[in-house]
C-alpha cells in the first residue's frame, strides 16, 4: 500500500532546502488549505451530479443530458448561475445572525471533512480522539441551521429550523452509540489507527452481529442527521417552501446546498472508514494471489469506491421511501434506535470481553 507521507515529507524537504523553516511551514499550510478547498468543491460537484443522475435512474428518467456529454457540465453551469444571482437580505431579518449562519454550517462541514482518512498518510486532522472530534465538529451544524431559521424572521424558516434541531440532536445519539460500538472493538479513536486494525478483515465482518446492527443503525441515523431521504422534514418543500433556508438566495443558498451534500459524503465516508475498512483493500484469508492483486489498487480508490457505494445506498433510500411525520421520526429514534443501540453496545462489550470476535 502506497504511503502518502513520502510525498508530504519530500515536499517539506524541498521547501526547507531553500527557505527558512517558518516560511516553509506557512507555505505548507497554504497548500493544505488550497487542497482541502479544491477537494471540498470537487466532492460537492460530484455529489450533486450523482444525486441528479441516481434520482433520475430511480424514476426512469435520464436526468441532465443537454449540457456537455451526459450532462456533465450541468453542475458547473449551476454554480455560475448561482454566483450571478443577487443576494437578497430581507428587511426585518437579524442581519448579523443571518450572515453568520452559512459560516457556521460550512465550518462544521469542513472540519468534519478534514477528518476523513483518504489513504495512508493522506489525512489532514488525525487526532488521537478523531472520532470524538468528528462528532463534536459536525454537531456545530445544528447551531448554524437554528441561526438561519431564527434570523430569517419567517414562520416557515422557524418551523423548519426547530424541526431540524429536534431531529438532528436526537439522531446524533444513535450515531454516537453505533460509533461507540466500533470504538469498543478497536480500543482506539484515531481514524488512521481504526483503518490499520482492519487489515485482516473489515469491522463489519470482524464484529459480526453487533457490528452489523450498528452499521444499519448508523445508516438510518446518518440519513436523518443530514436531513435527507425519508427524514427531510426540515425542508419539506411541499409544506414549508424550503425550510430553514427559505430566505436565502443566490450563493447564500448555494452554501447551504453544498454543505448538505458534503455532509452526506462525510456520513458515508465515516461509514466506509469505520465499518467497511476505509482505504484497506479487501483481503480474504488464505487467498494469497487475490490479496496481492487487491493490494495493487491504490488506497484512495478503495476509500472513494466504498464511500460512494454508501452514498448510493442512501440515495436509493431517499428516492424510495415516502416522508415520515415528525412524531414518527422522534418515535423511531427514542423508542427503537436508542434502546437497540444501548443493548447492541452491551452485546459488543460481551463479544469483546469474552473474545468472541474473529
Amino acid at each position, binding site marked *: 500500500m502506497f504511503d502518502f507521507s513520502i510525498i508530504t515529507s519530500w515536499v517539506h524537504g524541498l521547501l526547507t532546502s531553500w527557505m527558512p523553516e517558518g516560511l516553509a511551514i506557512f507555505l505548507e499550510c497554504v497548500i493544505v488549505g488550497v487542497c482541502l478547498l479544491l477537494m471540498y468543491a470537487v466532492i460537492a460537484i460530484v455529489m450533486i451530479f450523482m444525486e441528479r443522475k441516481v434520482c433520475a435512474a430511480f424514476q426512469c428518467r435520464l436526468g441532465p443530458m443537454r449540457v456537455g456529454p451526459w450532462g456533465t457540465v450541468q453542475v458547473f453551469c449551476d454554480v455560475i448561475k*448561482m454566483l450571478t444571482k443577487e443576494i437578497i437580505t430581507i428587511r426585518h431579518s437579524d442581519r448579523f445572525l443571518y450572515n453568520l449562519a452559512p*459560516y457556521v454550517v*460550512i465550518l462544521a462541514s469542513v472540519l468534519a471533512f478534514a477528518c476523513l482518512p483518504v489513504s495512508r498518510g493522506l489525512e489532514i486532522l488525525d487526532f488521537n480522539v478523531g472520532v470524538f472530534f468528528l462528532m463534536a465538529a459536525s454537531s456545530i451544524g445544528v447551531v448554524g441551521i437554528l441561526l438561519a431559521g431564527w434570523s430569517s424572521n419567517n414562520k416557515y424558516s422557524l418551523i423548519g429550523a426547530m424541526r431540524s434541531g429536534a431531529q438532528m440532536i436526537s439522531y446524533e*445519539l444513535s450515531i454516537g452509540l453505533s460509533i461507540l460500538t466500533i*470504538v469498543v472493538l478497536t480500543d482506539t479513536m484515531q481514524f488512521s489507527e481504526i483503518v490499520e486494525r482492519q487489515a485482516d478483515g473489515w469491522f463489519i465482518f470482524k464484529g459480526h452481529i453487533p457490528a452489523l446492527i450498528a452499521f444499519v443503525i448508523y445508516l438510518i441515523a446518518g440519513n436523518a442527521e443530514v436531513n435527507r431521504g425519508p427524514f427531510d422534514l426540515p425542508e419539506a418543500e411541499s409544506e414549508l417552501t424550503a425550510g430553514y433556508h*427559505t430566505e436565502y438566495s443566490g*450563493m447564500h443558498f448555494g*452554501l447551504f446546498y453544498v454543505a448538505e451534500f458534503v455532509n452526506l459524503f462525510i456520513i458515508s465516508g465515516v461509514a466506509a472508514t469505520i465499518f467497511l475498512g476505509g482505504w484497506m483493500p479487501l483481503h480474504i484469508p488464505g487467498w494469497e494471489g487475490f490479496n496481492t492483486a487487491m493490494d495493487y489498487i491504490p488506497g484512495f480508490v478503495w476509500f472513494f469506491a466504498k464511500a460512494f457505494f454508501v452514498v448510493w445506498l442512501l440515495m436509493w433510500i431517499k428516492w424510495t421511501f415516502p416522508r415520515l411525520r415528525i412524531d414518527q421520526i422522534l418515535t423511531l429514534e427514542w423508542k427503537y434506535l436508542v434502546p437497540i443501540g444501548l443493548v447492541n453496545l452491551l452485546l459488543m*462489550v460481551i463479544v469483546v470481553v469474552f473474545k468472541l470476535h474473529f
Partner: protein
Amino acid sequence: MYFTLLVVVILTAIALVAVALGIARAISPRSYNPQKGEAYECGIPTRGRSWMQFKVGYYLFAILFLMFDVETVFLFSWAVVVQDLGTYGLVSILFFLVVLILGLAYAWRKGALEWK
C-alpha cells in the same frame, strides 16, 4: 502541529464562504424593489413578527438529549480501555447503563417521548 492544522482548516472554511460570497456580491446584479425585502410566506403578506412565543414541543427531547450526550462522553473514555479492563469493565459499565436505561424508561412511562 495538530493545532496548526486545526487553525488552517478553520481558516479554510471561513475563506471558502468569504470568497464565494465575495465573488457573488461582485458579479451579481443589484436592483432595488421594496417587494424583495418582504418575507416569503407563499405570497401572502406576513402577519406580525416571527420572533414570538413559539411552542417548542420537544424541549423534553432536548433535555433527554443532554443527559444521553453527557453519557456518551463518559462512554467514549471507557470504550478505549474496555479491552484491558475485561469483565471488571463490563460489570462496572453495566450499572451505569442500567441507571441510564431506567431514566429513559421513566421518561417513556411519564409520556415525555410522546409528541404533543
